[in-house]
């Protein structure tokens, strides 16, 4: 993996550099930001997160399991209470709901981990501790022949530091 890393003090500089990089179509771009910013999000133009599918599927599976376990256990170990049916769906809604939330929530976390590629054992190329502090970073993964153009463009838009990494 070869590319150019740039650090920016100012948000608008980073946004401008990002837009210019996209316009000139230089390499694959990744942005580092200490906090999520809509300005950067709009400049990147990424598709919606896929986490929602994990939440939906997990929630549906959880709800089904919650009802199923209560109904199956009631049939397996029938205890008549107050003359009510053995498998009473009304009280079992508690289980359907609680297990839906439980599995839906844990699936959401799984969706986050899978989509965001965490946990990560080693820090990726191009990370700098400044990016959790106050600076914005842009990593441009590009072939060596495009690196010079990327460096110039990033400096031109106010990067405080530009360096090549591999």
């Amino acid at each position: 993996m070869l590319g150019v890393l740039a650090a920016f003090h100012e948000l608008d500089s980073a946004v401008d550099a990002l837009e210019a990089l996209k316009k000139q179509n230089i390499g694959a771009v990744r942005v580092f930001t200490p906090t999520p910013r809509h300005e950067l999000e709009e400049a990147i133009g990424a598709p919606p997160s896929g986490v929602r599918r994990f939440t939906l599927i997990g929630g549906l599976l959880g709800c089904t399991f919650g009802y199923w376990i209560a109904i199956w256990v009631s049939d397996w170990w029938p205890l008549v209470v107050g003359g009510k049916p053995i498998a009473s769906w009304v009280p079992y809604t508690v289980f359907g709901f609680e297990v839906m939330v439980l599995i839906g929530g844990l699936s959401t976390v799984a969706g986050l981990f899978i989509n965001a590629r965490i946990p990560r054992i080693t820090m990726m190329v191009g990370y700098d501790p400044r990016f959790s502090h106050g600076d914005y970073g842009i990593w441009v993964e590009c072939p060596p022949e495009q690196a010079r153009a990327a460096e110039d463009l990033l400096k031109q838009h106010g990067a405080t530091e530009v360096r090549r990494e591999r």
Partner: protein
Amino acid sequence: MATVTKPVREEPRRPNIATAAVSLPAVRDFEQVDREIIGTLRPTLAWFIGLGVAVLALLLGITAWMYQIYTGLGVAGYNPPVMWGVYIITFVFWIGIGHAGTLISAILYLFRAGFRTTIYRCAEAMTVFAVMTAALFPILHLGRPWKFFWLIPYPNWRYIWPQFKSPLVWDVFAILTYFTISSTFLYIGLIPDIAVLRDREKVSPIRKRIFTMLSLGWRNTDNEWRHFARAYLFLAALSTPLVLSVHSVVSFDFAMALTPGWHTTIFPPYFVAGAIFSGMGMVFTIIIPLRKWFGVKHYVTINHLDAAAKLALFTSLLVGCAYMNEWFVAWFSGNEAEQQFFANRIWGQWWWASSILYTCNMVLPLSLFVQKLRRSAAWLFIISFTINIGMWFERFVIVVPSLSHEFEPWQWTSYRPTWVDYSILIGSFGWFSMWFMLFIKQLPVIAIAEVKEIVPPKLRTAHEHGVDAAGRHFEYEPDTPGEFA
């Protein structure tokens, strides 16, 4: 005729919606946020003393529990038919405490209430530790506590399963789900902040390694933030109905019984409102000293406390409304047992407990209608104590008077907690405080990444707030006297 050209209005970029309604004028840049919030993690002598007191209280509780296990449940002051006492009261109390944390961290997040930003981490940690505390009490209440796992459905050699129509089994599911989702929500929100701690840790290699593991290799990339924001939103969306369901399920423990004062459909909303009210009280009890000791009054400002106090006032009114509705229904139902029970609760043997409850939960919080009192940290701290006391007594008044005054007059009796009950009650505060004290010196009690969202970022071009030559925001002059008090 001269044509008037309309000035072209540049469409402003979307603000960070979650925190658009709040500003921290005395916080100028991200470096200040990191420096000041990480600075709160340095242990102090007062912290060690506080931790020591918490551990001592916990040891007292453990000792009493050991004595109870050795001697039997009889030492706990139960007096048939009053077989639910301090343990169940305190169980409901701690579960309720947790609810405000989820309200602040999840529900107010969905409502985009900006004032939650600086207090939610504290409230969320409070939720997790409160649920951890509450979960002990059903076990403490068991004569043979080592059999508690019988409530959990699992395949076993005896081929027996729990009774799924029992509210006690509903409780197990509700509380386990609540604990799992609350702690997950807390941890997920902490990941970016732990990454900040990892990158700023220069002294201890062990701490750095622990933070490295806990941060899961978080790098602040756009991809991570995109999925993080979505996952956080969904967790908040799942936690919102969860918080309403948990105390509703706890209320079913009572409402499903045919006992006077319990068998009523108002219990679920009544319990939920009471839970949030009590939790708000505990939030004030915790956050007001913390903002002073940690020197973070410019993060948790009086404006934030004011907004939270309005929420406490609102929930107090809801709870008061529920109390009045209980009286009305008892009168309107024409049910003699119910009417006599309420008369006994208010004018009979339990008048003193009811008086504490109504004074602390209905009367004193009305003072929060006065803006001056809402903006007084000292008054809020006092009120928070009365709310905590009042809400414990609310559960006392729900549990004890009903069981001591059921249908058969020959069963009417009294109840007096013993030193074992009181010691375990104190021990529960020790257990809760111990975890909280450990938390506040290991992990940030103010969410670093979210605070950075509301601090205006450095820009190359000046904006309306005004920046100096170095790109820093001008020093803020508080124009409201006492704003940082």
